[in-house]
């Protein structure tokens, strides 16, 4: 039943992503061509306000609904891996013009082609699991 609340936050997220136009392939292409401030404004605002909220939650030791304080499980620093993995992701992001969240939201918007994009993403995830031992981490 608890998952219903995540479903509801998801609905809000889907509306936000559509109304912000962040799900638009055109907005992503425009962003990578530095021809509009729109996407930078969205991401920048989200990060600055998000950082402020997270800072506040940590500072005032706000309890989460799970009863714990806010923590973050840090990733081990490995610049080579971050750059390599990030670049592979970026190539795909700029090609299909959507990252994982928008793939789902675009499907809801009626773009059936997202079934193929999501299928590709699942295959890519599976392939990573199959070859991860051979990659630099």
């Amino acid at each position: 039943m608890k998952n219903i609340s995540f479903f509801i936050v998801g609905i809000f997220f889907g509306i936000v992503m559509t109304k912000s136009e962040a799900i638009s392939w055109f907005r992503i292409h425009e962003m990578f061509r530095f021809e509009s401030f729109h996407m930078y404004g969205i991401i920048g605002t989200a990060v600055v306000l998000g950082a402020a909220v997270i800072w506040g939650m940590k500072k005032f030791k706000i309890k989460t609904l799970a009863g714990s304080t806010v923590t973050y499980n840090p990733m081990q620093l490995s610049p080579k891996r971050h750059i390599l993995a990030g670049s592979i992701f970026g190539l795909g992001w700029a090609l299909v013009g959507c990252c994982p969240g928008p793939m789902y939201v675009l499907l809801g918007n009626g773009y059936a082609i997202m079934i193929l994009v999501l299928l590709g993403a699942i295959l890519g995830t599976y392939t990573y699991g199959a070859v991860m031992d051979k990659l630099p981490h």
Partner: protein
Amino acid sequence: MELIGNTSSFLEFVSQPWHWAVSGAAIALTLALLTWMGRSFGVSTTFKGICTLAGAGKRIPFFDINIKEEYWRIAFVLGGVLGGFITANFLQSPEPVAISEATIGYLGTIGIDYPEADSRGMGFVPTEVFNFTSLKGIILALAGGFLVGFGARYGDGCTSGHAISGLAHLQLPSLITVIGFFIGGLLMTHLLFPLLMGI
């Protein structure tokens, strides 16, 4: 009565494309809600969960996870699908995505029309490139998705996990990963994509 009278004008108000600052604040609110609910914002992990649901855990230990811990995330993205549906049907913008003149002009030179309203939405996807009717359209959609899925798992997160959540937690690995997102994105947009459109 007043409330009922205002409903349609409220819907009209919400239906306009949102200003970037409003959108950014709404994403920060999503992050805050998920954090308060005891979870961390990250969408791409759903792909791993789907692999686990399909039985990949039997062959590859990486997918051998407690899937019950992932149900909240799957509920979240299913909500995202419904949110998209609701917006497309009840809160649709009066006009297509208004990208800059410079981008429209450039896209024309590589054979892509400016965003147009169609039955599916207000110019969110160039369906002349990504479609089921051409082999190229199918391959590009699958290949792009593949790179996103592979890169997200290799990098342990996507835009929501690194660019939003990771940066909000002031994580250096996330910052470097986001720089990687831009290296790949710029390479695709400026070099590879024009070549792909020429084939």
